[in-house]
C-alpha cells in the first residue's frame, strides 16, 4: 500500500528532513510514526500525500509512484487518502454535516450520495446529534471526530493522521484512538504521527521511529521507546 525506497528529502534551505528511508506498509496496517520534533515525521506524511516530492528515491502510494504522476492526477491520488490534522482544519462557517459533506461535494459526488453517506459517517463517529452545530460549539474531541468523519467519509484506502491527539486531553484521546482503531478494522491503512507515549504503549501496533531524518527503529507491536 505504501513503500519508501531509499528516500531522501532535502528542503530548499539545505535542511535534510529524511535520509535513506526504507519502509513498506501493507494494506490494513496501523502504524505509529514516533520521534522528537524535527525528526521527519511530518515530512514522511507530506510525502505520502504528495504535498512534497522526494529529492532522491521512490515513494509508492496505492500502487502509484508519486513522482511520476502528473499534477492534474494528484487530486485523484488524494481521493484514496484521508488526512487528519492536529488543529482539525474545520471550516468555521459551516455546520458539522456541511463540513463533512464539503469533502464529498469537492470531489463532485452526487447529492444523493452525499445525503446518505454524511449521516452514516456522523453516526459512526458518534456525532449524529450534533450535525447542525458549528465547530465552535463543539469540544476539541468532538471537533477531531468531525475531522475524522470528513477524512473517512470517502472511504479512502489510507488514513494519514498528523498528531491528531496533540490538542486533546487523555480521556478524549482514548475515544479518538478507539475510533481510529475501528476505522482500521474496516481495512483502511492508518499512518499516525504522534508524540503520545501512552497511546502507543497501550495499543501495541507497528512503530516506526525517526531521528534526525533516519528510520532508527521499525518494530511490530512496538512501544514508544
Amino acid at each position: 500500500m505504501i513503500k519508501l525506497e531509499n528516500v531522501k528529502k532535502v528542503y530548499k534551505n539545505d535542511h535534510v528532513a529524511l535520509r535513506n528511508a526504507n519502509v513498506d506498509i501493507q494494506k490494513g496496517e496501523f502504524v505509529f510514526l514516533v520521534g522528537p520534533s524535527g525528526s521527519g515525521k511530518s515530512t514522511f506524511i507530506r510525502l505520502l500525500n504528495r504535498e512534497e516530492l522526494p529529492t532522491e528515491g521512490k515513494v509508492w502510494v496505492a500502487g502509484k509512484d508519486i513522482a511520476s504522476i502528473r499534477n492534474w492526477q494528484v487530486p485523484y491520488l488524494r481521493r484514496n487518502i484521508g488526512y487528519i490534522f492536529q488543529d482539525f482544519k474545520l471550516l468555521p462557517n459551516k455546520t458539522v454535516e456541511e463540513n463533512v459533506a464539503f469533502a464529498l461535494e469537492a470531489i463532485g459526488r452526487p447529492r444523493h450520495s452525499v445525503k446518505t453517506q454524511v449521516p452514516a459517517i456522523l453516526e459512526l463517529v458518534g456525532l449524529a446529534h450534533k450535525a447542525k452545530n458549528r465547530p465552535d460549539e463543539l469540544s476539541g474531541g468532538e471537533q477531531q471526530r468531525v475531522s475524522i468523519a470528513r477524512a473517512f467519509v470517502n472511504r479512502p484506502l489510507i488514513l494519514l493522521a498528523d498528531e491528531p491527539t496533540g490538542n486533546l486531553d487523555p480521556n478524549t484521546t482514548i475515544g479518538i484512538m478507539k475510533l481510529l482503531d475501528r476505522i482500521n478494522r474496516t481495512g483502511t491503512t492508518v499512518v499516525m504521527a504522534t508524540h503520545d507515549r501512552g497511546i502507543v504503549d497501550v495499543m501495541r501496533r507497528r512503530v516506526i521511529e525517526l531521528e534526525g531524518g533516519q528510520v532508527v527503529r521499525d518494530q511490530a507491536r512496538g512501544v514508544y521507546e
Partner: protein
Amino acid sequence: MRLDYLVRETGQNLVRNWLLSVATVLIVTVSLTMFGITVLLGFFGLDNAFITWNNDVSFIVYMNPDATAEQIAAIDKDLENSPQVDTVEYYDDDKTFELYQKMFQQDGPEMLTALEKGDLPTSFRVKPSNPDANVVKELANSYGPKTGVYTVDFPDEQVRQVQSAGQTIRFWLLLASVVLLAASIVLIFIAIQTAVFSRRREIEVMRLVGATNWFIRIPFLIEGLIQGLVGAILAVSSLAIIGAAWKSDGESMKGSLLARFVWTDDQQLWTFLGLLGIGAVAGALGAFISTLWYLRD
C-alpha cells in the same frame, strides 16, 4: 459539478467580499457606459450626423439629372486625372438612393417612399490631395461651370469644425474607456485574489480531499463573470436611459447640428449586446488570470 454547489459557493464569495464586489461592478459599469457613449455618439452618431461628408470628402459635384453618359464620363476623367484630387467616388442612382434612405431612416416610411431611384442627382464625392480650405474652394469652383454639372457643394466651416472636434473627442473617450476597462480587469483580478485569500482554508481542505484545480477555480471564474456581467447590465440600462433622453431632447433640438447625432435601433441593439459580451469576457478574463496565478497546480 452540481449546480446548487456552484450557486452556493459563488454566492458566498460575492457576499463575503461584498464591498469589493460592489466597487468592481461599479467600475465595470462606468467604463462600459463611457465606452457605450463613445460607440453610440462618437461612432454611429458622428457618422450619421456627417453622413454626406464622411471619409474626408471635401466637396461634391452634383450632375444634372439629364446629364449624358458622355458628360458624366468627361467629369470623371477630369477628376481622375487632376493632380489635386486624391480620391474620387461616383455615386450612381443605386448608391445615391441607398444614401438617401440611410439619411432619412429616422423620419419614417413616408419620407423613404417620397422619392424613387433616379429622382436624385448622381454625384462625384471628391477628396482633394491638399485639404487647405482655399485650395479646395478654388478647385471645387472650377467644376461649377462644366457641362452637365448641376452644382458643387461644400460643407460649411462650422460643420468641418464640429466633425473634427467630434473625432478628437471620440479618440479621447475611446482611450479613457479602454483605460477604465483595463482598470476593471485589474480590479476583478484583485477581487478574485481577495476571494481566494479569504477562502484559503476551504481551498486547502478541498485540495487535500482531492478536488481538482478546475473544480476549485470554477466558482471564482463565475464570480468574475457575474461581476463583469452585472456591471455590463447596469451600463446598458444607463445607456438606454441616456439614449432615450438624448433622443427626446433631439426632438426639441430639431434642425440643430446636435439633433443629427442619432443612431438606429439596430446600432443600439448591437452596441448593447457587444457591451454585455465585453463585460462578461472582461470579468471572466480577470478572474481566469487571477485563479491561474493564485491557484496554480
